[in-house]
């Protein structure tokens, strides 16, 4: 038991270290100093309150959407449509945020957050969830397709559509101060969304490991047929798991919109919903692991700018490191077998 738990932590950590090692080799090949590059990266990610806030600002949507993806993984589902649920959440939160007037902050802000959460939840549960539960349509296809619909819907709304602000920039009007998530660290983009994300991790952990529903989700994930044979309503579990997952991704969009962007705008290239899949995988679908993985990706993002500014290393190199991480997670079987062998040798000696 202890050895498998240690492996569960060691394997992703080694994946990350290996990817940094390979990334460093690429830095050398590209004619830069890898030590300077990584020092700049770390410095840019954690070196000051401002930099740490930047890291966490990017980590927040990844935490929330990552928790959502991890939840469906636990149920044996592959919700790769977090991006679409994120955008639906952003649309709903932005609309409630700017179009609903005259509410006090303690009503308006929760309402906007709730709108985003519900929009994401329904986007995931109503079509992909129901289709999967009753027709078996594969959620990889349906959630992916629903993502394209959501992204293009958001695009339409702000590129000349009904949510476009006056002027010619493709963006919605700014959300009202009563719907704005206040800054956690003044002078930075880090909002109270961080607290929401940590609370969400606690909630996901509690639901998964301390409730009957969570037990059913995990049972269905381990073996759906066995769960059905044991008398569980697997169709209901699928729809609810998609609902929870979409809710978290929708909340991610709402938090980003109300706390960082303050409006809906053409930010589709950020791809938090897609990165969230990697975050969930790296976090081994464990709520705490997801938080840590999200911080890592936030740090890579915030440090990338510093790496460019201080070490002159192209920012795309950070994409290479991220790609390496994904690669080493995908081949974690290799790391596992090496670990097993060293353990065996140690035991024999």
């Amino acid at each position: 038991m202890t050895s498998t738990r240690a492996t569960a932590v060691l394997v992703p950590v080694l994946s990350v270290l290996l990817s940094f090692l390979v990334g460093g080799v690429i830095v050398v090949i590209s004619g830069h100093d890898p030590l300077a590059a990584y020092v700049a990266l770390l410095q840019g990610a954690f070196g000051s309150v401002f930099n740490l806030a930047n890291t966490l600002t990017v980590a927040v949507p990844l935490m929330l959407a990552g928790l959502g993806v991890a939840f469906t993984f636990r149920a044996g589902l592959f919700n790769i449509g977090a991006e679409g649920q994120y955008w639906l959440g952003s649309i709903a939160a932005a609309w409630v945020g700017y179009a609903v007037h005259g509410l006090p902050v303690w009503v308006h802000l929760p309402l906007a957050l709730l709108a985003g959460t519900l929009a994401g939840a329904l986007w995931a549960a109503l079509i992909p969830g129901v289709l999967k539960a009753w027709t078996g349509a594969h959620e990889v296809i349906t959630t992916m397709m629903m993502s394209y619909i959501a992204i293009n819907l958001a695009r339409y709304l702000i590129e000349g559509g009904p949510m476009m602000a006056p002027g010619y920039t493709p963006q919605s009007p700014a959300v009202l101060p009563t719907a704005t998530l206040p800054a956690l660290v003044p002078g930075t983009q880090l909002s109270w969304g961080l607290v929401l994300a940590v609370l969400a991790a606690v909630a996901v952990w509690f639901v998964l490991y301390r409730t009957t529903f969570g037990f059913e989700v995990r049972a269905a994930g381990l073996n759906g047929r066995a769960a059905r044979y044991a008398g569980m309503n697997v169709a209901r579990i699928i729809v609810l798991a998609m609902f929870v997952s979409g809710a978290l991704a929708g909340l991610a969009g709402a938090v980003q919109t109300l706390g960082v962007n303050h409006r809906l705008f053409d930010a589709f290239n950020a791809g938090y919903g897609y990165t969230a899949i990697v975050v969930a995988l790296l976090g081994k679908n464990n709520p705490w692991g997801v938080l840590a993985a999200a911080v890592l990706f936030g740090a890579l993002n915030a440090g990338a700018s510093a790496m460019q500014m201080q070490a002159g290393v192209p920012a795309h190199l950070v994409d290479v490191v991220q790609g390496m991480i994904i690669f080493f997670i995908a081949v974690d079987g290799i790391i596992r077998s090496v670990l097993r062998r060293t353990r065996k040798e140690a035991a024999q000696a």
Partner: protein
Amino acid sequence: MRIKRLAVAALLVLALVAVAACGGTAKNTGTQTASESGSEQGQGGKVIKVGLVTDVGGLDDHGFNELAYKGLQKAAQDLGVQVNVVQSKQQSDYIPNLTNFANQGYDLVIAVGFLMTDAVHQVAPQFPNTKFGIIDVDYNSVVTDSGQDANADKSKYANVAGTIFKTEQCGYLAGVLAGLVEKNNALPGLQGKNTVGVVGGIAIPPVDSYIAGFQQGVKAVNPDAKVLLEYANAFDNPQGGKEIALAEYAQGADIVFQVAGGTGLGVIDAAKEKHLYAIGVDADQNYLGPDNVITSAMKGVDTATYQLIKAVVDGTFKAGDFTFDLANGGVGLGVFAKSVPQDIIDQVNQAAEDIKAGKIQISAQVQK
């Protein structure tokens, strides 16, 4: 369980050591730069530091960012300024990237493109000692956040300069060229209907100024010519651009002026397919179809970047707008296709001289 805790603890310690270590190194580099700039000061004058923040298009976008970078490099060579560039990967990077440069004591921070208007609006007032320049956005738009913050206090934006391009002027020259080609039947394969076309991206002022100039240029030399105009309502839809261009060619247009960014690449495709002609926009696009792209109406983002930096070096930088036109080389035409007759090129150059001399006035309003 215990091993897991141990592992977590070990990791935390490692992370702390790493942070502490890099904190130390950062201090070292800090002193190094200080002593370096000290010695440079000894040689006379402080070296001016310029930071460029790209929008999400990245440095290799064949457009604005790439041109701005070109201007930045030229300034580094000619003016001896210290330059640095950071590419924004997503829209939420704009504020941290601008702030980082300002925090590090950069003298001038240049933001590329109208997507960054909001970010400059927010960051500039926090750093009154840093100058901010923004490409292709006017000063007033920055102050008022594109009109959304109409009551903004102008005095907080004394460190901001916008840049405006008189693209109606290069649009006009493109129109003169197209009008003369039609009139003189000067290129092979024309359909003989005395018609030219325009494919616009979205009907916004930076697009419409080009189109307005083009319409006036055509009419000035060829009053009977017909100018078709259609908007694609997107900047990133080459297929849609191609379809509109094909429709215009089918209506008898021989030359289609694309003012549509990525959408316009489809227009050039259509020209090649139909063995007809197109005019490129923003950057020199002749290389995309050397026989078909007869010229390009160019926006001198590189010139603007260079001039912003030069103004800081010369001490002439002030709040307001830098205007770029034919006279100061901020807009102009690109390479002509080889098949364009020299006498037409001469007449286009004459029109350019007349505009510079103020003999021709061009409106930026599109005739629809």
